[in-house]
């Protein structure tokens, strides 16, 4: 039976088997791509980006900028675009109607059928997507750094990525994810979007969202789950290393703070744009494709600095009808520590406002950097121990991204030579 994804379109994996792939790529011009594009090739090919079948042509990108929708009216909020310089296009002799081979790590990755070569006012694009053209905004900086021409057209993967340990267990594309939800018997599932090692504030965000997603469903047996969907992509110095993020999120289940029947960890390849409300919509689209029924949104979802009001994303989500974006937002209030209650509680529940002690992932990182082990009410000891283990095993002594980590880390995935 067809699996229907975002925009009411069937999720179809655009992937060739090796023998057919080897035939199809013969004689094609090879164009090397960078990691951002390779991530997006995977997202397109496996269906994370349904209904996109490739990189956007001008009509789709313009629709996204002008009205947060593709040319066919499907809600979409972030341009998925393939950039090249005019000189590169000329040097490769690329023109509309051509088919080229995209390579990554010097090996064949995908076929790109070029339908449209276009340009755009990038400052205008930034204003539309980020609400600013200020180059201090990391998404603006990235977008304005794109080359001056864009190529739109269909992508077909010719070489499946080899997902390297410890990430391999967490690479669960949309069609496979939907099977897993069915196997688990989840009638509702709520996603926790993260780029963090979890502290108990995150844990309670998930537990609160789980309860909200349960709503009026029957409780005789467990039928609601939390999916942690970690965003794995470009790293900034000082972030937690990816290995610590993915393994520590799963540790909450392994150590019993959640259970097999209500919690699962996975990843999505994506370089964050920090587009706040627009990125919140985008996250919803990809989570619809993963088969989720609910999406958690806290304060300032996918924001950065002071560019967005903490509830801009909530307001934009509320403006989109369910028939256009088939996922239910779960808005989460902050969880915090109340010394009077002696527990983690919620700002919507606790009446000891003057005694509240708020904490954030950033604050916890500072505590860890100071060489202090936080108490279990704040940070689970199993998670803390695993963070330190990851520092030794993967982080060259640090649980945080350093220059050495960026230079020497094992890639999350590899594209290996094509074996027919």
């Amino acid at each position, binding site marked *: 039976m067809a699996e229907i994804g975002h925009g009411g379109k069937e999720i179809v994996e655009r992937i060739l088997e090796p023998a057919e792939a080897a035939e199809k790529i013969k004689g094609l011009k090879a164009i090397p791509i960078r990691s951002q594009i390779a991530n997006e090739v995977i997202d397109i090919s496996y269906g994370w980006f349904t209904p996109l079948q490739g990189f956007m042509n001008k009509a789709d990108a313009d629709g996204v900028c002008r009205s947060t929708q593709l040319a066919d009216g499907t809600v979409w909020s972030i341009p998925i675009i393939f950039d090249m310089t005019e000189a590169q296009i000329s040097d490769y002799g690329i023109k509309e109607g051509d088919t080229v081979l995209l390579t990554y790590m010097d090996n064949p990755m995908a076929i790109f059928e070029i339908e449209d070569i276009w340009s755009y006012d990038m400052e205008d694009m930034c204003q539309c997507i980020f609400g600013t053209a200020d180059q201090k905004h990391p998404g603006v900086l990235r977008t304005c750094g794109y080359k001056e021409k864009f190529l739109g057209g269909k992508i077909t993967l010719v070489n499946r990525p080899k997902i390297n340990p410890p990430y391999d267990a967490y690479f669960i594309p949309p069609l496979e994810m939907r099977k897993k939800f069915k196997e688990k018997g989840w009638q509702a599932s709520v996603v926790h979007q993260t780029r963090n090692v979890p502290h108990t504030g995150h844990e309670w965000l998930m537990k609160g969202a789980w309860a909200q997603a349960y709503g009026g469903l029957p409780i005789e047996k467990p039928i609601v789950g939390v999916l942690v969907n970690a965003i794995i992509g470009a790293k900034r110095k000082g972030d937690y290393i990816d290995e610590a993020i993915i393994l520590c999120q799963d540790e909450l289940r392994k150590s019993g703070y959640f259970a097999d029947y209500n919690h699962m960890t996975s990843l999505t390849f994506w370089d964050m744009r920090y587009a706040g409300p627009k990125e919140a919509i985008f996250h919803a689209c990809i989570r619809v494709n993963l088969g989720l029924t609910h999406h958690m949104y806290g304060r300032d979802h996918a924001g950065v600095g*002071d560019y967005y009001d903490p509830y801009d994303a909530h307001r934009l989500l509320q403006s989109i009808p369910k028939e256009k974006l088939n996922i239910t937002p779960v808005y989460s209030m902050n969880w915090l520590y109340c010394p009077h209650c002696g527990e983690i509680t919620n700002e919507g529940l606790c009446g000891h406002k003057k005694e509240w*002690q708020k904490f*954030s992932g950033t604050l916890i*990182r500072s505590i860890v950097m*100071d060489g*202090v082990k936080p108490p279990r009410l704040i940070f689970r000891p199993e998670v803390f121990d695993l963070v330190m283990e990851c520092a030794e095993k993967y982080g060259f002594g640090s649980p945080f991204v350093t220059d050495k980590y960026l230079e020497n880390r094992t890639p999350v995935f590899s594209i290996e030579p094509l074996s027919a």
Partner: protein
Amino acid sequence: MAEEKYPINLWVNEERYDKLQKANLADMCAEKLAGMKVIQVFANDAQKDKILKVFPTAKFDTATTRSIELLPKKVKDAIFDKVIEKQNPDILDDFLSAY
């Protein structure tokens, strides 16, 4: 309206606690987040801006705690040592004068 002050949290590990005890300053610690000991050094707007400029890894947590976080440990150690030396957490002007 009083000017907002932004804390730098010096979380007190065993090594720092030993130093505080030796200086008879252990009472300076506050208790936060279910039993962690901390000394808070407060920055005004100008000091906050200077810290964020001089130490680019530092981050002002605008959303949740409104505190200055992610200063390198050696910088926080130096601030901590200055607190011990002056026997007072009001040391930021003195500390920042070197930068």
